[in-house]
């Protein structure tokens, strides 16, 4: 279990983390969300001792995270970077050994992950000679090869093609079912909704929402209302309706105590109702509400 406890960090006048705290359960995948500059990267760097918080701690299985614990963590930083002129296999083995693997273990692990990530033939190539997408895969391999208990991935899906996204999602799900705890940040909310069981949303350094995705959705007092009247956009005329723009049928966010029967009646009066859906909010809706835009 990974716990962020009351983290505070200022950079000059900027408050990067403001009493930020949340918990990630073992073997689960958590989507760590927030607008740019909200403090995601700072929080992740704190886990790896790259940034010292002004106050607060990070605990792993109950004890504060130190150099020994970090060797059992895998990290894929937002700023991608490896040695451009070094052979792919050599540098992956180097990083795995730095994480404490023996020569033979490192060698086996690297070959395994190069195979899984579709880079089996590229081990002797220099990183520089690989395509952007493949470099991204090597970066992921550097985090995965040491067989970590905890994986922290900063925007792992950015820059991947749809097939790459799908296979990475599968890989993460498999790892989690094998007991690996995973935290990743992303701006692709639909993807997070598909892959993650848990989410934490951070805004201006504060964790504004965290927990199981289902619980968070159910706890929300908002509901998503989708109405399609004769193919025309039709918006119910009542207080507190928030229209979500987009093509096709109109989507609105309403409170959970909205008079659904009345709304349906007025929609019927306006024309033929092809679709009328009243459902829990989507992650996008929660996100928008949480960060207040």
């Amino acid at each position, binding site marked *: 279990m990974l716990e962020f406890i009351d983290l505070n960090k200022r950079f000059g006048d900027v408050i990067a983390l403001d009493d930020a705290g949340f918990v990630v359960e073992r073997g689960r995948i958590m989507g760590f969300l927030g607008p740019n500059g909200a403090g995601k990267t700072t929080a992740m*760097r704190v886990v*790896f*001792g*790259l*940034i*010292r918080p002004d106050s607060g701690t990070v605990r792993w299985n109950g004890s504060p995270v130190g*150099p020994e614990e*970090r*060797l059992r*963590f895998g*990290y894929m*930083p937002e*700023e*991608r*970077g*490896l*040695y*451009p*002129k*070094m052979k792919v296999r050599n540098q992956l083995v*180097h*990083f795995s*050994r*730095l*994480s*404490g693997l023996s020569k033979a273990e490192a060698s086996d692990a690297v070959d395994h992950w190069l195979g899984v990530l579709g880079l089996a033939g590229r081990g002797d190539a220099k990183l520089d000679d690989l395509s952007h997408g493949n470099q991204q895969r090597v*970066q992921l391999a*550097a985090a995965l090869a040491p067989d970590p208990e905890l994986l922290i991935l900063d925007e792992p899906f950015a820059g991947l093609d749809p097939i790459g996204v799908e296979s990475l999602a599968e890989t993460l799900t498999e790892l989690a079912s094998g007991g690996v705890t995973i935290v990743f940040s992303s701006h692709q909310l639909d993807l997070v909704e598909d892959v993650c069981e848990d989410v934490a949303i951070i805004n201006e350094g504060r964790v504004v929402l965290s927990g199981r995705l289902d619980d968070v959705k159910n706890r929300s007092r908002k509901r998503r209302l989708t109405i399609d009247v004769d193919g025309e956009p039709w918006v119910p005329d009542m207080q507190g309706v928030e229209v979500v723009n987009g093509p096709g049928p109109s989507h609105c966010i309403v409170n959970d105590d909205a008079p659904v029967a009345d709304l349906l009646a007025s929609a019927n009066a306006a024309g033929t109702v092809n679709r009328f859906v009243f459902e829990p909010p989507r992650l996008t809706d929660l996100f928008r509400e949480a960060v207040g835009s």
Partner: protein
Amino acid sequence: MKPWSQVALLAKREFLERVRNKPFIITMSLLVVAIVAIGPVVSRLAGGDDEVTKIGLAGEEVPGIEQELEAQAVLFEMEIDVERFPSRSVAETALAEGEIEVVLIDGTEITFHTGGSSRLTALVQGAVDTAVKTEALTELGLSENEIAAVVEPIAIEVTILEESDAQDEAKRGAAFVGAILLYISIIMLGQFVAMGTVEEKQNRVVEVILSRVRPWQVLVGKVAGIGLLGLLQLAIFAGAAYASAQLADLPDVDVAAIGLPVIASLLFWFVLGYTFYAFLYAAVGSTVSRQEDLQGTLMLPIMLILPGYLLAIFASEDPDALVPTIGSWLPPWAPFVMPVRIAAGVAQPWEILVAIVGTALGAIALVWIGSRVYSGALLRTGGKVKLREAWRAAVE
């Protein structure tokens, strides 16, 4: 996993990636070829046939003289070439033209053109003496063994209690060359350290590394790896220079005259001096984000190194002068100046102790300061980080 085994892994990567680097291998090979070639080429240009001393013979023949000359030459550790001339005048012309250095006439007269060498005189005299006596004893009817017992020169062991000036010169020269080598090496290797640091920052690989190890480990690993590379380079160059001297058959290059203690002391000061400055270079290098910004920042270490180099030159002229003496006590300059003063035999034991302890403490302080600046500056990109800001932002 122990911190030091991680440091060893970091150092190993640093060393191997650089040694395997093609441009490095090519540059080293070219330099080695150049160094090996320089000795023989210079000695040929300077007329390297001086090694063989030519001796002329004229007039009445002394029986067995050629043999005896060769025998004496072995004792004198000289190489000679004996040539017989038809007459005294022909021999004297050859002497005047420099074809031979000395001529023996009638077995009774030794003629030089100018100057004259007591060593050569002794050699020829010995040969004539032995040849004449052998002849006389043969006539008396002694056997070959008996004659040999009488005339065979006795090898006498020579011991020198006080070292001669030549040896002092060799030591002082070695210490001075050591100071120059240290100066060049620190500037070059320091540049490697600083560039490597910036590269890792520029490539962003530093975040991947620092998620596994602490800043001081990265720093020590890098400095150790590049230091090993420097020692390897020095060893290769020294080997090439020795081979070059052997090929050129230079009698001046006498490693034995320098002596192992001096070489060991040079090596010791090299390691100490390199360590001191390498951590400074790493700290300074970590404050910039791009290679282009590096040159300006490197002025700081260079401004510190330069006086050390100049003081070493002063010290080699006048090892007891006040300024080099004070310089030889202080950490930034001791590695350059102290070996020169030690070789000159003027450094007191307490001075050497002060210099060693001071420099070692300085190096340790720089590991600490360097690591702190390094950790504070590494994740800051864009522009140059001020040393003070980096110090405050440090992680550990």
